[in-house]
């Protein structure tokens, strides 16, 4: 249990990378990129977890109850929202590539000299 979440993080990263390398469709590639990014969220939250602690919100819990690390949660939170915007930008590039070259296959796109 001490290392199992990190094994899952590495698994998700590896699987996502495999999807990116062997992809035949740009949108499939972008979704695999989303999967790779999500592995970093799990890593961030896994690093900050404290056994037996609660969420760092003291609205209904007495002050100074042991809580998990709030800094990594702040990082992961903005990360998730920004990832969606960057994905949208990548998708607009995919649309433009399709208009320009007529194909969305990354392995065909790589060999174009246009």
């Amino acid at each position, binding site marked *: 249990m001490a290392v199992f979440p990190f094994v*899952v993080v590495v698994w998700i990263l590896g699987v996502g990378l495999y999807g990116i390398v062997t992809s035949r469709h740009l*949108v499939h590639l972008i979704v*695999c990129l989303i999967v790779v990014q999500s592995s970093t969220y799990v890593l961030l939250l896994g690093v900050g977890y404290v056994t037996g602690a609660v969420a760092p919100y003291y609205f209904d819990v007495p002050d100074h109850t042991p809580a998990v690390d709030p800094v990594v949660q702040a990082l992961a939170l903005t990360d998730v929202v920004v990832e969606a915007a960057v994905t949208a930008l990548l998708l607009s590039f995919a649309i433009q590539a399709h208009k320009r070259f007529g194909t969305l296959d990354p392995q065909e796109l790589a060999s174009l000299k246009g």
Partner: protein
Amino acid sequence: MSVASVHTPYTVPLAMMDVLQVTVLLLVAAAATGVVLTRQPARQVVVLSVYGVLLAVLFLVFQAPDVTLSELTIGAVVLPIILLLTLAKVRKREE
């Protein structure tokens, strides 16, 4: 650090939390594999939504409700919408 020595405000035993976390981690790993192995982009979007919901549950079990909220709205609403719109746009030009 043994489980019994941790001071915790939980009402369930700590071992239950461990079991829950391991279960959700396994589900997340399986869903990630499913997302990558689904080659059709239109179907992949649906599997991505499932993956987003499972990730949200994982973040909740890791005591991070803020990140859960973000991931739920982004993964279940915004990402599928922009992906499906892109696919509709691309398919239109292929006709």
